């Protein structure tokens, strides 16, 4: 008998109500378990990737660059430099004799070719082993070229994605404070932890514009080096996707005293709450901001809610499983699904913390399965056990749902549909509706009446 959930993984799965809350997490992935997680490098790469006028050079063998070429749907309104894939493409001789010379030559030629505003140099597993002094090379090239050249210490094996986020924040923090803050409004924010997938940052920026709040820097969706350099001039940091950018917010608070608020632009309540938080924060500077924000939310909701109600008619009672990278998305989506009359019965993440899972357990219904660092066979079992109708996840989860004839919502890096903001909530509902309501499911063998009939016949004959 095969073990779907290995003994060593059992403490990373929790069923609400069946036992008191206790969950192991924040552990290295188990060898041979086929984790859905990537590596430290991946964490750094996804966070910094959308900075569009920076050069992103991967120092390592070719794979790390190949598999991250144009990987995110993080749109830029201007430069497209971030969508190119640069690598030192280390070869055997470089591994033996060191890759510093190749790195330096690569940096110099690429900076000359592309005139970036800054360069990020990503360390990979191999660089951590051969001991290249990346920092020294970066310093030299920065001095000679006059642009910031920032080492990102993202050796793949030195942890998981979370360590990569930290490395990315440390690299960005070197930029913060190096730009002129003159002319920044006292009512100003930085948007942290939004990556402008399918133009989502633009939706949020437009809300702030309507509220009278200036956005200094998007960190990092549609991001620009010069904006990050002066972002310490903003009055407030708004942190979405806290796993990825909270570190930067904390560093900025310590160094520049910039306060931060946790926000989420997904779903109805969380989007509205995020705007109200900002309005509250600036209320003493501009007493009318509250009214403007209320009006904005009212206008958006009066358009959105009837449309959601229409879709809800079809979706009421359907069951959802979701598996995401960090947990912030899960919190918001559980609430978002309630607006559609749907119940989340399985929820998991690659890199959630104990607090995350505790909070998930509090807001989820009894019986819900919570899982940390899951893998394909576990997810398949949970889908079956809870008989879910739709799965929310990324590319690697999609075939698991589809093979079982279960609908799917792509809530991933490369999506082309904006899911944030009030308009994003509608897009989200439509995407769920489009998958759940497709006629194809009725023909799938797992649901097919023909199969049921055969089974019934067997039961009778048996």
């Amino acid at each position, binding site marked *: 008998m095969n073990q779907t959930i290995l003994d060593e993984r059992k403490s990373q799965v929790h069923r609400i109500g069946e036992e008191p809350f206790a969950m192991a997490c924040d552990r290295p992935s188990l060898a041979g378990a*086929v984790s859905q997680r990537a590596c430290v490098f991946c964490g750094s790469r996804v966070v910094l990737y959308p900075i569009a006028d920076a050069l992103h050079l991967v120092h390592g063998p070719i794979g790390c660059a190949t598999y991250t070429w144009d990987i995110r749907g993080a749109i830029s309104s201007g430069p497209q430099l971030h969508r190119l894939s640069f690598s030192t493409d280390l070869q055997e001789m470089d591994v033996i004799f060191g890759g510093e010379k190749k790195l330096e030559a690569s940096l110099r030629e690429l900076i000359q070719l592309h005139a970036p505003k800054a360069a990020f140099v990503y360390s990979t*597993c191999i660089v951590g082993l051969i001991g290249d002094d990346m920092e020294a090379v970066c310093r030299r090239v920065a001095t000679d070229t006059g642009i910031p050249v920032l080492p990102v210490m993202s050796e793949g094996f030195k942890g998981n994605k979370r360590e990569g986020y930290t490395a990315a924040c440390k690299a960005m923090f070197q930029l913060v404070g190096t730009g002129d803050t003159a002319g920044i409004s006292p009512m100003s924010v930085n948007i942290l932890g939004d990556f402008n997938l399918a133009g989502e940052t633009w939706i949020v920026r437009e809300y702030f514009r309507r509220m009278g709040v200036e956005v200094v820097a998007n960190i990092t969706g549609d991001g620009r080096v010069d904006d990050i350099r002066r972002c310490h001039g903003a009055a407030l940091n708004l942190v979405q996707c806290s796993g990825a950018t909270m570190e930067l917010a904390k560093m900025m608070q310590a160094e520049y005293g910039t306060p931060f608020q946790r926000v989420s632009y997904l779903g109805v309540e969380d989007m509205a709450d995020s705007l109200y938080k900002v309005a509250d924060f600036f209320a003493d500077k501009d007493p009318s901001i509250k009214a403007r924000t209320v009006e904005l939310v009212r206008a958006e909701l009066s358009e959105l809610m009837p449309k959601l109600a229409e879709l809800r008619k079809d979706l009421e009672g359907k069951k959802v499983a979701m598996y995401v990278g960090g947990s912030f998305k899960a919190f918001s989506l559980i609430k978002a699904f309630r607006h559609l009359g749907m119940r989340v019965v399985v929820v998991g993440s690659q890199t959630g913390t104990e607090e995350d899972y505790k909070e998930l357990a509090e807001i989820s219904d009894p019986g819900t399965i919570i899982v940390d660092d899951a893998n394909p066979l576990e997810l398949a079992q949970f889908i079956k056990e809870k008989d879910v109708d739709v799965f929310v996840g990324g590319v690697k989860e999609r075939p698991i749902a589809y093979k079982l004839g279960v609908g799917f919502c792509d809530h991933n890096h490369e999506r082309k549909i904006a899911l944030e903001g009030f308009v994003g909530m509608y897009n989200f509902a439509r995407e769920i509706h489009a998958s759940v309501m497709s006629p194809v499911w009725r023909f799938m063998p797992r649901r097919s009446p023909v199969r049921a009939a055969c089974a019934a016949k067997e039961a009778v004959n048996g």
Partner: protein
Amino acid sequence: MAENYVSTTNACKMCTPMGAALVFKGIENAVPFLHGSQGCATYMRRYIISHYREPVDIASSALGEKSAVYGGGPNLKKGILNVMRKYDVSLVGVATTCLTETIGDDVGRYLNEFREEFSDLSLPELVHVSTPSYSGTHMEGWHAAVRSLADQVVREKGKAHDGVNLLPGFLSPADYRFLKALGQRAGVRFTMLPDLSETMDGVIWDDYHSLPDGGTPVAEIRAMGGAAGTVEFGMSGGLFESAAGVLERKFGVPARRTTMPIGLRATDQFMDVLAEFASCDMPAKDAFDRGRLLDAMVDGHKYIFGKRAVVYGEEDFVVALCSFLGEIGIQPVLVATGAKSDRFRTAVTAALAEVCQTMPVIRDDADFKDIEDEAAELNPDLLVGHSKGYKLARARNIPLIRVGFPIHDRFGGQRILHVGYEGALALYDKLVNAVLEKSQDECPVGYGYL
């Protein structure tokens, strides 16, 4: 001549372990296992899934900092045990990565220790292949994995049989299906290694399968030593001895090498090779397809004659594509591969010698920056290759005919048929229509007849 850069921009290759992982995905009930950090397995899974849209479970030893210092043996063994617990696995294919190659892990020794330590368990085949990511491309990894299977799983000559080993290289599931069916039509029993026809383009399931159906059965691999011959497509790997070479040296199985059967002449060649083993002349279906292909080549020849194509991708695949494009009157003007290969130039030149009046620019060790720079002066009409050429196609406003792997921006890449007369005909229609569509789109008034 474009400039030579130190850095690589938009690589036209993948890393070595990727090829090995794909090969192991084509073995029945096998689990590919990357000995390295967790990210390698996950990145490759994502890359592969985006093309095939199938579950792709690749295990990892998930090495952390400690293992990098003290060696990855314990994690490797624990990982294999966990794979055995979770999957009904008949073979675990362990491929190294840059990390474990650099720290000097001796995987062969670890596997021997594992076999001894767990001799009380019923163990799957454990195959290992050295795939340092800093050496070669995914195709070196592919060929090395096929060779490791031939070397480590085929232990004896075994009983002589009339089957034929077919080592097709990296093709689409549709291609593998075609080759199997061709063998059946011709009365040749192929052991095709690997066989991704079902594992990477499977049916819908009524219950979740921990591993997909299909793939080359391990028992059939074991019997490859007794086969009547081995047919190997392409140049297979360059420097080292190929799997066909291993089987010839160790068990005296005669090796025949032929170009990947893409297009008329290469398929003719393959049919000739096949005829040596076959129970009949060319099967009727293929004879008809050949006739239809020739008929189409006549019907369409003027639309495409002299069109200038940029062709890029894996060496063997590109050589075969060039042979086809040349014979239908398309002029390859730039032929590029990301691999370093001395033989590439010779092979492309040989493929085009009879049918093209001028030779293309031929580049090995090329990235898309090189391809773009070279293409700038060559005024191409078409791009033929995988979907990573999209950026160039868009910039130049020319059609990209998507073939090979990866195809991340279109649906159905796993079902593109490239080989045989049937595959040639399908590609031919696509090529002609791409040219027609462009001229129709650009016509100021449009038209309804050609």
